[in-house]
């Protein structure tokens, strides 16, 4: 029998990977579920990694925008790769390495590894970057760099909220040595959460500013959606600023000691600010997280959510895998592996990607129809055939 359908074997339509400059909370949660990261484990790896990146970049005298980009790479990488495939320290080093290139503050991979090493040993045991002990690690980091770029879908746009934040704090009459400094440190802590993946630059800057004001007991009626900080001017909304504020407060209420600003205030301070904000959010019916257009709007309670930024009491506490896991090769790329069957293309414009997919699908979707045919049964003829 001849094959039923006209099987036209054309070129593979290729996989399109669209750049996601903004990833919302629900997507983040789905990614982590997909790779089997428990909340506790993920928190741990996230906080340790960001602290590592911050300490090493300070020792290398790298500016904060390099820190910003490195942390974004680190987060995006971890959303796609299960943590048993790599050690978080290697990922952090590769993220910092990639960020150095992106932000034009070049550092060799060995310099990064050497700085990290020297931080852990007393000064009389310090080594220089060309020490042979960094040889193998350096190759690993360079191998991971490729995966970093793929995870970020080669999107090299970066955000620099601190610049805008300093302008706003100055314009709002903040005092550089006190509230200004707090706002700055809050912006560093902000990168320990997932907020930088979800929010625009202005939202982040404004949120840090507001929390600094609250911590210093300043009059918030002068900075919430008024004057210089009018939300409309900055294309943000109370819901988004609130989401970011709550993300920060989650960090401080659950992981106070792992942050920069946390240890400077007692836990109660953060809890009381949180209560005030929760009341405001409930009264104004603000959703806890921004939703995608395709997601149904559920009734989100502000008190009981399962925030990724905090500890979920119902998840079983899996024993943390020891940090010494170092596979001899870099993990297989979650994205590039599809390249074995077809090409993977990276695009920046989602509209274009969608239009292309629609167009291509017309040729590949097999349309089947079912209809009934009444056939007269003639047994002899059937046998001859």
């Amino acid at each position: 029998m001849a094959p039923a359908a006209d099987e036209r074997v054309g070129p593979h339509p290729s996989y399109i990977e669209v750049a996601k400059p903004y990833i919302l909370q629900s997507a983040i949660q789905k990614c982590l579920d997909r790779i089997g990261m428990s909340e506790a484990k993920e928190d741990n790896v996230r906080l340790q990694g960001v602290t590592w990146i911050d300490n090493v970049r300070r020792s290398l005298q790298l500016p904060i925008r390099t820190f910003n980009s490195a942390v974004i790479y680190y987060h995006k990488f971890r959303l796609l790769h299960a943590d048993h495939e790599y050690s978080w320290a290697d990922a952090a080093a590769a993220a910092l390495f990639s960020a150095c290139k992106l932000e034009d503050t070049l550092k060799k991979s060995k310099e990064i590894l050497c700085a990290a090493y020297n931080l852990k040993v007393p000064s009389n045991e310090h080594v220089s970057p060309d020490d042979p002990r960094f040889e193998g690690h350096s190759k690993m980091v360079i191998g991971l760099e490729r995966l970093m770029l793929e995870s970020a879908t080669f999107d090299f746009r970066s955000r620099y909220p601190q610049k805008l934040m300093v302008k706003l704090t100055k314009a709002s009459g903040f005092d550089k040595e006190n509230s200004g400094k707090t706002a700055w440190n809050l912006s560093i802590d902000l990168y320990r959460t997932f907020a930088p993946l979800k929010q625009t630059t202005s939202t982040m800057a404004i949120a840090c500013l507001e929390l600094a004001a609250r911590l210093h007991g300043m009059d918030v009626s002068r900075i919430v959606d008024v004057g210089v900080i009018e939300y409309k001017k900055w294309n943000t909304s109370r819901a988004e600023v609130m989401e970011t504020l709550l993300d920060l407060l989650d960090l401080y209420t659950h992981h106070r000691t792992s942050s920069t600003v946390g240890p400077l205030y007692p836990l109660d301070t953060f809890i009381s600010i949180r209560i005030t904000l929760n009341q405001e959010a409930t009264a104004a019916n603000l959703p806890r997280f921004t939703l995608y257009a395709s997601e149904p709007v559920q009734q989100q309670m502000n008190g009981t959510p399962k925030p990724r930024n905090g500890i979920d009491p119902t998840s079983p506490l899996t024993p943390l895998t020891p940090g010494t896991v170092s596979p001899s090769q870099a993990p297989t790329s979650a994205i590039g592996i599809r390249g074995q069957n077809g090409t993977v293309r990276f695009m920046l414009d989602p509209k274009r990607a969608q239009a292309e997919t629609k167009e291509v699908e017309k040729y590949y979707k097999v349309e089947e129809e079912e209809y009934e045919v009444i056939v007269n049964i003639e047994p002899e003829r059937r046998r001859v055939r």
Partner: protein
Amino acid sequence: MDPFEVRMRFTSLLTHLSASHTSLQKAAIFALKNREMDEDLHSCILEQLERNSMNSRANIMFFIEHLCDMSVKEGHMEYVRMVQRDVLRIVEGVVGGGQEGKANVKVVRKVLHALQSRSILLPATVSELEDVLNARDLPSHPALSNSTNNNNNSNSNIKSQRNGALRLDKRQIEQRIEEDRERHKRLRESIWAVPGEAEEELDRLWEEGSEIAEDDYVAGREDLEERRQGIEFGVA
């Protein structure tokens, strides 16, 4: 390692210094690691300054700057004190040796000013040393010299001297050009370098940042558009 070996190793590190930051760092780390022998190692430095090629001496001068920095960071001030004590000898060593040494005058000036800005050398000391340098600078390059009279007669003598010296040092000159290039590259890197305490970067942005302007608003609008697109087309 026994003292003799330490001296040998250190001398070798000094003679193999290049413009690369790693080579300077290695030697400095070694010096601080063996800080019990600081007097000895310091005398090694002085020795090498008086006998090596022009390029080597320039590299050693930069190394001294780096060593002082690291010593201050580690709180081991002996090396700094010895440099302060012997600074004249160091300067003479680097710029000495006739025509060759003159190429190092700029190097010395740079390092001296760097050390002054870090309060390792007093301004008075530095200006005294400047005088020494200027005294050395007087029989200058014929092209730079303003007074043509004096030079006309001695011109031919100087020229032949220079040609002789030049021919011998061609490779050194090329090496020096390469090393200077390397150093300039590193200098440019430090435009963005911020000291570890983030306060400095905050200060910088605070003082030097511009006022809020139209382009900030435009950037905000563009961000919003991008995010809206992400929300519209994205899937959880």
